């Protein structure tokens, strides 16, 4: 089985879907000859031609708006937004159009499409190449929000997203693009959306995380284990619709929970997990839920490594809920 980086797995997933389904079209800014600014679409134009992989004008509103029309009319658009920070001109098309089309037309028109976009910090990208905007989108019924953290999941989730009958926002943790490697099967396979992944078992504390925070939490869990605390690390990997049953099961097994994300805390995804626990599992809890998150500030540049939760902040939180 080949060993790939996460970005190579994304490329492989696109390749696989394009090969098996001629309706899959990949487009966006710089995705053709350049192969995307992170090379996610490298060689797709060469292999499938400019008909299937092509550049668009510099307009996110145009990219997503036309993708919706293509999807309504039988293509499978896989649109790339160069950085998640640049998605906001298309916010209207995503939130008010793609996500609501099925509902407002009574199912007569639908927009099965994938919007791929790199998100998150870790590349010294400053305020506008680092944001984690998942919470904006998780507040949007009709949209699915998927975030892989391993090469295997990246490919399997991407293929599943492309085949999904609903619009999927596929957020790729750019910090992991080249920093994680893993075995990835050749050809077609899928990872079901709305399922979680147990990264590490442990009976003392549960840590929920996703994207680039998964390796951070894993490292923290390993450090905690050295001190005798066994941590269950759960990669949520589909935020919407979330596998709530799996989340609550994991909560009930330890009663001690840490939620980690790099996005700001206020109204972040951790708030949803905390509320879910308060509503459905409060009687199992041995300690208050702790959120380890980015600060409620814009994303900095020079000091980004302080902004993003690191394994020490997570370890501190694990120990806190364990010793509570």
């Amino acid at each position, binding site marked *: 089985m080949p060993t790939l980086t996460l970005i190579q797995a994304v490329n492989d997933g696109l390749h696989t879907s394009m090969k098996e389904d001629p309706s899959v079209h990949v487009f966006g800014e710089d995705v053709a000859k350049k192969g995307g600014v992170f090379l996610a679409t490298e060689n797709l134009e060469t292999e499938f031609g400019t008909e299937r992989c092509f550049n668009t004008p*510099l307009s996110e*509103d145009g990219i997503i708006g036309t993708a919706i029309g293509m999807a309504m009319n039988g293509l499978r658009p896989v649109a790339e937004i160069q950085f998640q920070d640049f998605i906001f*001109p298309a916010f209207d098309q995503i939130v008010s159009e793609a996500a609501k089309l099925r509902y407002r037309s009574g199912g007569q028109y639908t927009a099965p499409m994938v919007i791929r976009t790199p998100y998150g910090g870790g590349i010294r990208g400053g*305020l506008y190449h680092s944001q984690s905007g998942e919470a904006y989108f998780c507040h949007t019924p009709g949209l699915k929000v998927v975030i892989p953290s391993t090469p295997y999941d990246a490919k399997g989730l991407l293929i599943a997203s492309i085949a999904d009958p609903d619009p999927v926002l596929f957020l790729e943790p750019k910090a992991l693009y080249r920093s994680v490697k893993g075995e990835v099967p050749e050809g077609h396979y899928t990872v079901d959306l709305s399922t979680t992944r147990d990264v590490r078992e442990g009976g003392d504390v549960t840590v929920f995380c996703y994207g680039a925070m998964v390796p951070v939490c894993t490292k923290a869990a390993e450090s905690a284990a050295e001190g005798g605390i066994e941590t269950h690390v759960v990669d949520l990997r589909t935020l919407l619709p979330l596998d709530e049953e799996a989340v609550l099961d994991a909560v009930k097994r330890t009663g001690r929970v840490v939620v980690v994300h790099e996005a700001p805390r206020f109204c972040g995804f951790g708030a949803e997990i905390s509320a879910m626990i308060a509503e459905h599992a409060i009687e199992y809890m041995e300690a208050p839920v702790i959120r380890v998150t980015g600060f*409620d500030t*814009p994303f900095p*540049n*020079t000091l980004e490594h302080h902004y993003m939760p690191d394994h*020490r902040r997570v370890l501190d939180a694990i120990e806190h809920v364990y010793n509570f």
Partner: protein
Amino acid sequence: MTIVDSTSEIREQYLGADGAVTSELPDYDDAWLRDIFVHLLRVRCVDQRMLKLQRSGRIGFVGSMLGQEAAMIGTAAALRRQDWMWSGLREGGAALMRGLPLSEYVAQMYCNSNDTAKGRQMCNHFQHKDSNYPSWSSVIGTQIAHGVGAAFAAKRKGVDEVHAVYFGDGATSSNPFHSAMNFAGVWKAPVVFVCVNNGWAISVPASQQTAQPDYARKAAAYGMPGVTVDGNDVLACCEASKALVERASAGHGPALLVVNTYRLMGHSSSDDPTKYRDADEVDSWEKRDPIARYKKFLETRGLLAEGEADTIEASLLAEIDSTVHAEEAAQPMPLKSLVEDVYADVPRHLRAQYNEFLRVAERFGDAQRGDGAFPL
């Protein structure tokens, strides 16, 4: 060359690629002509030095201005002290001309504690409040609308200010281009829209950007004139910009100025342009080098002696080297800057988040630079 309405006296070119005069020149002051040369040369020297620093891993990112020096220096030289310059990625050289100290320029490239943006922006995102040069966001086109709003404010206040809004060819597809041009037309806002058409939006050529490659013709959609000039001819850029600034200042509203030039390097230090464009195309533009052209012109006019350019260059490089040396030694921003400037005051929840962060950092023994608990 596209000309619409009263801007018909604007010339597309004064200096040919070989430096020969192709159109009758206005009266110029010799000292001014020489100054322009120094500005052009400084841009190139700074640019080359920054690229070297990036390649040796000392700074993170450079958006090279190579090949576009005349476009930015020429158009910006026409701006008056009170005018504003709304920049994109590749106008930092014009900021230097407008008065941005070289030390601040280099500090911004190092994102250190001398950086006026406090290390929060990526490299190559300059600002200089004293010369009305606001900080750019990395998002394409957003500054176009900001410039129109600011120009509207000046008009409402009765202040004589023209706002020069810079953007690339790719930005003509962005949402704010459409909104801002439309609003400026309706409001007759004192704006000069400077479209620096350098042929490539990262890897996307004009043919994939628009079916109307004559960008100046887009102006008619918003009821304003559109003018195109040779962007590698610093005098043509300056004269066109001057005419449009005067026009805007006189209350005749906005105009679109397209300066045709070429980005000789990649989009940024992270980009490899050989993947998407032919070497022949780059070669042909290297032959149209804006600085060589202007140098030839000055020499012919007797304003630059043989070898004098080398002397100027040597002194520019010395200044740059000593500045780099000083800025490299500067400290990074203190940790507290993480939570400052989010709001006018640091709110309670951010103070708490910072103190919690500091507690953990101290516990693991690496609270940097002696930052204590948040003092507010």
